[in-house]
């Protein structure tokens, strides 16, 4: 099996040149050449592939900043001593770590160094004639021979029966029509045809490996020019596609603001359907649909929908529906009766029934700043402990409870604050928890006075005119969108498809050489020899040679 990589691999130590000239420089090239040959050998490729597989494992054992940033934060707070050590080893950024990158970069250098010489070799082989017929075909792995008596042979029109040259001509046309490349050779006493097929196998292999390089580059470049961002939008609110409007925004390395195409989007309505019939699955979500209106510059608004598996393509980016929840509308009046805060506040879901928590900060309240830690239950029910919990994700018995605090919120200190969490240090609790006063409990439309004349809180209903027990529209919902732009994603797909095509032809097309030799006997007999040689995996070789022999003999017989 003289496959091209054998040709490259292990072809001896680096050649010695004239020892007279400067030794160190030569030593260096020799060393480099030796190193290069090692790097591009199949053995190294295997080792690097296995290393790559092993190196990918830790990324599934610890949370990764790229896919689960909150998990990393949690891990740090749970394992304060271990986490920094793991972080030093880049175990929270495995796939961008130095060691992971080193492995795949070496692998791809090896791949390039392996593919280029093989491509050159293969291009040459594509133009070359099939090789000379071996003198002794019977030594090959697959060999058959028959002798045909003169009486068996087709007499032909001229009356002169078939001889070796006829037989070889027949074999040549037969092999050609079954896709072999052929060449005729003349030996001392014999004529032969040498045939080879399945060049597409090696072509497929090279296409496959080259496409892998294409995928790597497309992924790298696409990530560099694209961006990803998140945005929470409450029903009735709008989003304008500028960097400042995103809740979080991660640009690629080569991103410029010009990549953000202008558009505006309004969430008209978010619809969630829950299982009603099956008892086991009661209340599980079946469908989420966000109804939106979008505007491109100088154009009329367009109504569209975004569903979980059906992103919306808009302005060169794709918008995905990743999450949803409730945003109770809360209005706070301060001790002087002024409206110090009014907004629909997105609450973060904590469980499948959308028990949610949220925070309201009211720095403008006078005489004292106010803050609230809220719990929202779309369908409130009571645990045996007396605590509230949500028993269904839909709005059937909505209740909002609030812990209230006063004190300096520290918003002027410039320290960034988590909008979904409240750090109570330095604050005085005035309702709920250890304050002695009960937590504030509100239904949509209700207002409660705060202790000590500090003001009041209103849970505004979004459907004040609904029937008495119809809460279904009383609290606005919000959606959380992931917005991505990856200009190279089609390239990645294209290279992946090319890779698969290459893989299929490389794995399943046989590459083989076949020889047919004809020898004229002294007594008018004709000896025919058939042999085959596999180049790579070829389970069907023996059967193929037999079939060729059978058809060939058939054509020659009377």
């Amino acid at each position: 099996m003289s496959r091209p990589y054998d040709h490259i691999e292990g072809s001896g130590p680096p050649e010695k040149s004239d020892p007279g000239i400067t030794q160190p420089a030569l030593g260096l090239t020799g060393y480099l050449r030796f190193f290069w040959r090692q790097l591009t050998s199949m053995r190294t490729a295997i080792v690097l592939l296995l290393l790559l597989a092993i190196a990918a494992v830790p990324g599934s054992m610890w949370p990764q900043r790229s896919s689960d940033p909150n998990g990393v934060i949690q891990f740090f707070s749970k394992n304060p001593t271990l986490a920094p050590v793991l972080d030093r080893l880049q175990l929270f950024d495995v796939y961008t770590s130095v060691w992971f990158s080193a492995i795949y970069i070496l692998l791809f250098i090896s791949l390039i160094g392996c593919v280029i010489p093989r491509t050159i070799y293969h291009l040459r082989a594509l133009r070359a004639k099939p090789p000379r017929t071996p003198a002794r075909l019977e030594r090959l792995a697959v060999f058959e021979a028959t002798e045909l008596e003169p009486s068996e042979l087709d007499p032909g029109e001229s009356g002169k029966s078939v001889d070796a040259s006829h037989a070889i001509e027949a074999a040549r046309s037969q092999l050609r029509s079954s896709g072999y490349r052929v060449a005729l050779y003349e030996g001392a006493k014999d004529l032969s045809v040498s045939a080879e097929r399945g060049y597409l196998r090696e072509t497929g292999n090279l296409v496959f490996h080259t496409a892998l390089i294409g995928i790597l580059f497309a992924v790298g470049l696409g990530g560099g020019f694209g961006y990803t961002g998140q945005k929470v939008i409450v029903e009735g609110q709008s989003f304008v596609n500028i960097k400042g409007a995103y809740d979080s925004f991660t640009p690629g390395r080569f991103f410029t603001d010009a990549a953000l195409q202008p558009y505006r989007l309004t969430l008209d309505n978010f619809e969630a359907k829950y299982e009603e019939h099956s008892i086991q699955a009661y209340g599980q979500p079946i469908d989420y649909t966000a109804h939106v209106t979008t505007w491109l510059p100088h154009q009329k608004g367009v109504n569209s929908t975004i569903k979980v598996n059906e992103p919306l393509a808009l302005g060169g980016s794709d918008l995905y529906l990743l999450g949803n929840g409730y945003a109770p509308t809360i209005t706070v009046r301060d001790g002087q009766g002024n409206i110090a805060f009014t907004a629909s506040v997105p609450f973060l879901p904590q469980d499948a029934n959308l028990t949610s928590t949220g925070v309201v900060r009211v720095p403008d309240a006078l005489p004292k700043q106010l803050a609230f830690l809220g719990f929202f239950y779309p369908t409130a029910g009571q645990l045996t402990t007396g605590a509230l919990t949500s028993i269904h994700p839909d709005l059937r018995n909505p209740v909002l409870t609030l812990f209230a605090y006063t004190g300096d919120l520290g918003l002027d200190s410039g320290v960034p604050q988590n909008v979904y969490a409240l750090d109570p240090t330095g604050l005085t609790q005035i309702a709920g928890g250890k304050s002695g006063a009960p937590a504030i409990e509100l239904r949509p439309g209700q207002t409660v006075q705060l202790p000590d004349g500090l003001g009041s809180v209103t849970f505004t209903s979004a459907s004040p005119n609904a029937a008495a027990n119809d809460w279904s529209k009383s609290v606005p919902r919000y959606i959380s969108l992931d917005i991505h732009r990856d200009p190279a994603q089609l390239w990645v797909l294209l290279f992946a498809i090319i890779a698969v095509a290459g893989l299929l032809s490389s794995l399943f097309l046989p590459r083989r050489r076949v020889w047919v030799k004809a020898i004229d006997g002294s007594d008018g007999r004709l000896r025919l020899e058939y042999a085959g040689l596999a180049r790579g995996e070829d389970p069907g070789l023996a059967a193929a040679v037999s079939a060729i022999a059978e058809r060939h003999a058939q054509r020659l017989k009377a």
Partner: protein
Amino acid sequence: MTETFDSFALVAIYSAMGVYVVAFIFFTLDLAKRSADAKPAAITASVGQNAAVGGRATVATLEAEAEAVAAPPRRVERVAFSLTVLAWALHVVGAVLRGLADGHVPWSNMFEFSLVSSAIAVGVFLFLQFWQDLKFLGTYITGFALIVLGVGTVNFYVPVTPLPPALQSYWLIIHVFVATLGTGFFAVGAGLSLIQLLQSRREADKTSRLKFLGTLPQADKLENLAYRVIVVGFVFWTFTLIAGSIWAFHAWGRYWGWDTKEVWTFIIWVLFAGYIHARATRGWRGTRSAWLAIIGFGAVAFNYTIVNLFFKGLHVYSGL
């Protein structure tokens, strides 16, 4: 209606398990019988090849024909095989009924994965017989199916539930189905590689207590069979990877995000790429590549069990 279908599905599944047990016993008896039949001289003999190669004067064919005559009829094995076919039919009926109960394809939680992946593994084993006589893997495959189906049904059973929105995609159907197909081929391939390892050990020192190995193909033949089965699995796995990224792209807005399951799909793919390379490299062919095939399948099993159950990620749909 749903509940009726589901309970009929369970009846079919438990019956299938019962028949698999009997088939497993018969396959094991056959191995015992093979041990009794194996004479020391039989070490170099290789059966298990269909004489489909055909043709006339090739040395290989002559050998195959001679063996076909020499091999004693394996009646016990034939019974075991028929039982496996029966069990599989029940198994498939169970899966179909479960799908009817679901109202969607039955592979959206751990129980259904176990149900379908074991059915596909056995199906691959059965259909490969048209190509090669691999019945000697019967003990391994029925044992595998029993464990997967048993654990899946007893420990992971969940009643019919609607598909959560993230799973409502025809890419899910393709992705998971192709993954289970690939798993079936990897399972058979790993079985062949396992026997290959035992066989080459025996060929090296000729003193194995597993006498039935004497009636099985030689190590290099087993290696070729394993390779051919595994590359088919590899192609399916490549499709899994691609269909999975397309699905991820529709559902989460990125085709690749190194989520836990994506990581493991990738690891498995790379391991088998390593295996294919090993097969084409001097010094790695044979025992080492066989180990890689087994490790690769081990990673598949790990992915289906430990990763699904204990690792955190976006793919949280074990249904438990």
